[in-house]
């Protein structure tokens, strides 16, 4: 019984209750379905807040564990093993926060097949939280692959004109990486005899030359998900075609599954390989930063612009992680949260104007500030946060990452130098976007009658704005939560470095 009422199991599996209730509702009762989904996801968020109160930040280890034997796979014991630590708890919070907001954003945007949409959305939340809490590789893989399925349907059914193409591309692309990881997981099972992440990390008994290959196999799955340049080409299609709520979750959480994977598995389990490959990963990350920024600038479609900006921002996260020092990794984790908040908010914002005008072409707008003042003000805050203005969240994350990357003994400071240029480029394309949309003359007839955003829409964005300011002005609690766990991870890496490179 305690298993069912354990805060971790509840956070992970509560959405199932919503799914079951929705299954029994008639498809025509759209509002009832929406409310059930919203209430379920808010309840999940509430439980994750409870989870945070149980969480002891001073403890660097996996805590609040649920660990029961699941079944016997020939001579392997597969465990149903959940747990959180400082690396994952913030991402769980991010997931449970963004889900209700996304559901709220679909209130009037999704009118077709609401029942199926909400079922898929709640299942998606289950899959994502599951990835963050799974501490058994087998269980992790199940959640990891499962989270693909609802997103595939969300893009494919409720997406834009090229949705089928985007959905299949998304699925096949991500699956390609995943199956390589599957082989690596099998290798670990055969040669290490356990799937327990905690045990594999504690043992540290994987030979360094094999770590290299395992690192690459895991990295294949995660780098596609992040996405790192040059494996990013699924992302613009998926983001652009997905419905607003889908894009929010895709950018806000799904991409973090990749960066989290690097953190949890590649850095912790294969530290030798991580040290060896750090310059390569940092190099790809830096290319991603500059490439993403440059391509963003060239976009006419707002949503595509935001999508490419994700490539750039996630490059910062990767650069931070592969600085392999406390500042870099802490900045990386914080930037994961920041990107979820800012880009999530940007997609919500784009969705709001798309719902009114049914176009995302920047040339179709201009001067919107005059008709949609509240909307414009909120957008300004989010835009500034995304480009890293001091006082808002983006700055804290990017600054810490650059600090880590400059001081790293594993990668060259040149990477940080180039990455810093990325911040300037971000300012260019984001301000360019803002200017095209909101400033200038209000010269298009269709735009003159646009209504400003309503209370529901403000409510959708407001929580994100609060966090944007909070992290920008007082990030200490966030660093406190992740600090000990990051230090522990860095110790593992340093121990591996001290033991000598192979």
């Amino acid at each position, binding site marked *: 019984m305690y298993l069912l009422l354990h805060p971790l199991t509840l956070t992970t599996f509560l959405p199932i209750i919503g799914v079951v209730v929705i299954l029994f509702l008639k498809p025509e009762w759209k509002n009832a379905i929406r409310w059930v989904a919203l209430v379920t996801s808010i309840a999940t968020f509430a439980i994750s807040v409870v989870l945070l109160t149980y969480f002891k930040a001073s403890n660097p280890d996996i805590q609040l564990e649920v660990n029961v034997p*699941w079944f016997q796979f020939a001579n392997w014991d*597969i465990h149903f093993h959940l747990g959180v630590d400082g690396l994952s708890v913030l991402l769980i919070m991010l997931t449970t926060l963004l889900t209700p907001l996304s559901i709220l954003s679909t209130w009037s945007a999704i009118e077709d097949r609401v029942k*199926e949409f909400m079922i898929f959305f709640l299942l998606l939340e289950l899959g994502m939280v599951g990835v963050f809490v799974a501490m058994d590789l087998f269980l992790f893989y*199940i959640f990891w692959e*499962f989270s693909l399925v609802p997103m595939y349907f969300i893009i494919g059914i409720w997406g834009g004109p090229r949705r089928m193409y985007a959905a299949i591309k998304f699925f096949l692309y991500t699956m390609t990486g995943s199956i390589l990881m599957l*082989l690596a997981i*099998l290798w670990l099972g055969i040669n290490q005899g356990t799937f327990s992440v905690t045990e594999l990390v504690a043992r540290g008994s994987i030979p360094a030359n094999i770590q290299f290959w395992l690192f690459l196999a895991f990295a294949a799955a995660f780098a596609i998900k992040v996405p790192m340049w040059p494996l990013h080409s699924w992302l613009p299609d998926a983001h652009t075609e997905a419905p607003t709520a889908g894009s929010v979750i895709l950018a806000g959480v799904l991409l973090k599954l990749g960066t989290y994977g690097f953190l949890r598995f590649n850095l912790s389990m294969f530290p030798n390989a991580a040290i060896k490959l750090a310059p390569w990963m940092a190099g790809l990350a830096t290319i991603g930063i500059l490439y993403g920024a440059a391509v963003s600038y060239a976009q006419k479609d707002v949503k595509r612009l935001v999508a490419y900006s994700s490539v750039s921002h996630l490059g910062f996260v990767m650069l931070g992680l592969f600085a392999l020092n406390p500042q870099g990794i802490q900045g990386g984790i914080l930037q994961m949260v920041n990107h979820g908040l800012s880009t999530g908010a940007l997609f919500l914002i784009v969705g709001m104007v798309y719902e009114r005008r049914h176009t995302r072409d920047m040339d179709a707008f201009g001067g919107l500030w005059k008709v949609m003042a509240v909307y414009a003000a909120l957008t300004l805050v989010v835009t500034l946060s995304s480009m890293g203005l001091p006082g808002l969240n983006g700055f804290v994350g990017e600054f810490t990452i650059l600090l880590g990357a400059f001081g790293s003994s594993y990668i060259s400071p040149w990477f940080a130098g180039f990455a810093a240029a990325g911040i300037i480029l971000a300012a260019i394309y984001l301000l360019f976007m803002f200017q095209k949309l909101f400033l200038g003359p209000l010269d298009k007839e269709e735009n003159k009658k646009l209504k400003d955003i309503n209370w529901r829409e403000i409510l959708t964005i407001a929580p994100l704005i609060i966090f944007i300011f909070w992290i920008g002005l007082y990030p200490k609690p966030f660093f406190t939560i992740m600090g000990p766990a990051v230090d522990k991870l860095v110790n593992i890496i340093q121990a591996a470095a001290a033991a000598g490179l192979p």
Partner: protein
Amino acid sequence: MTLPDLLQNMDAILPMAVLIAWACVLVLVDLVIPQGRKGLTAVLAAIGLLLSIVLSISHYGKATVGFDGMVIYDGFSFFLNILFLSSGLAGIALAYDYIKRVGIERGEYYSLILFSISGMMLMSQANDLIVVFLALELLSIPLYVLAGFARPKVDSEEASLKYFLIGAFSGSFVVFGIALVFGATGSTNLSAIVKAISSNAADLPLLTIGAALILVGLGFKVAAVPFHMWTPDVYQGAPSSVTAFMSVGAKAGGFAALLRIFVTAFPSLSTNITMILWVISALTMFLGNVVAIAQSNIKRLLAYSSIANAGYILMALVPFGNSAVSGTTISAALFYLVAYALTSFGAWAVVIALEKAEGQGLALDDYAGLGRKYPLLAACMAVFMFSFTGIPPTLGFMGKFYLFRTVIEGGYLGLALIGVFTTLISAYYYLRVIVIMYMREGEPVARKEFWVQFTAAAAAVLVVLLTLVAGPLMNLASKAVLLTF
């Protein structure tokens, strides 16, 4: 052989013997059941299957040898027998309304299914190559008839003839192989063959050729490349309910023989045979999946999918000579067969639900709009497609996980890589079915036939449930060991 002796020997084949007797009686009883009430025959056939299941379960855990070591009853045959008998039940459930609907309702349909199943059961229990051949024919001949059951429809007759000719052809390979093995070792009994090999009394080149010929013959049965050419035409031409049964039963029967013969008798030949198996398995996975992409008819698509799946199961057989993993080989193959059987029956149930008279409603485009109009049926089909692809949480994923594990443990990482990449190729066409069902608009018409829908729903539930509660099936599969003596 005295009567008490005979009775004692019968113990080893009791479930099968009862089924044969039941089938013989059913042929006669069917004569007095009036046309139009043939549903009664179906019910009687199902009772026979259930009886046999009960007998099998009551024998569980006992390992017996009968008829001078010609048949054997062990964990392996128990597992497979239950699988065969259950697929018989599913086959009857799918046929019950379908053969009425397409106007081919004749009572012998059900007896033929029972005969075929008894052949499969004999196959799983055979410990002598002669019995293997006997079982192969008993399994196949009813299927040849069933494939042509929709006569005088040309497609069905063509399917029947093709299947018969290829079956006879492949049967002759098996016989020839058996003869060579007999020549090389002086016996057809698997235990005696093992003894002959271990005492160096066997003529190894001859034995290897014999084993290879048996592999070819059985390769036809399980539809492995390059012996697969008949499959798409036969699957398409035969009545759908027959195809569903055939795609599971005949394949599982063929694998029963392959696993038993190669793991028991021929591990010492692995230096030569493994190479051949490796190539066949890789080719089967590759060709099956690649050609399936081009199909626009669901029956042909599933036919190529079944070819590809044969390749995956063969993958488990590749390390058969490595005694450290041969146990896993058996359980991985059996586990995957269950996953394949459930998924396949489910998918065929959906196909049957959507099939219209005269072979209409079988194009992939006919599935457009299914997700909107029949959400449950479409959800079931989506589960099956994900299971075929190997996406968790479905049984197909567990099965593939087990297979890949066996292959990597056996030391064939290259084959595992081919396996995962062909899986990726397969994702494309399985996903396309889902795309068509959910993302295109259309007006499909599905039959509201209880047993068809029940089969689809039950299979979908089991495919997911047996993954979440994987323990029992895993245990059964790992206990399904071969008895050797």
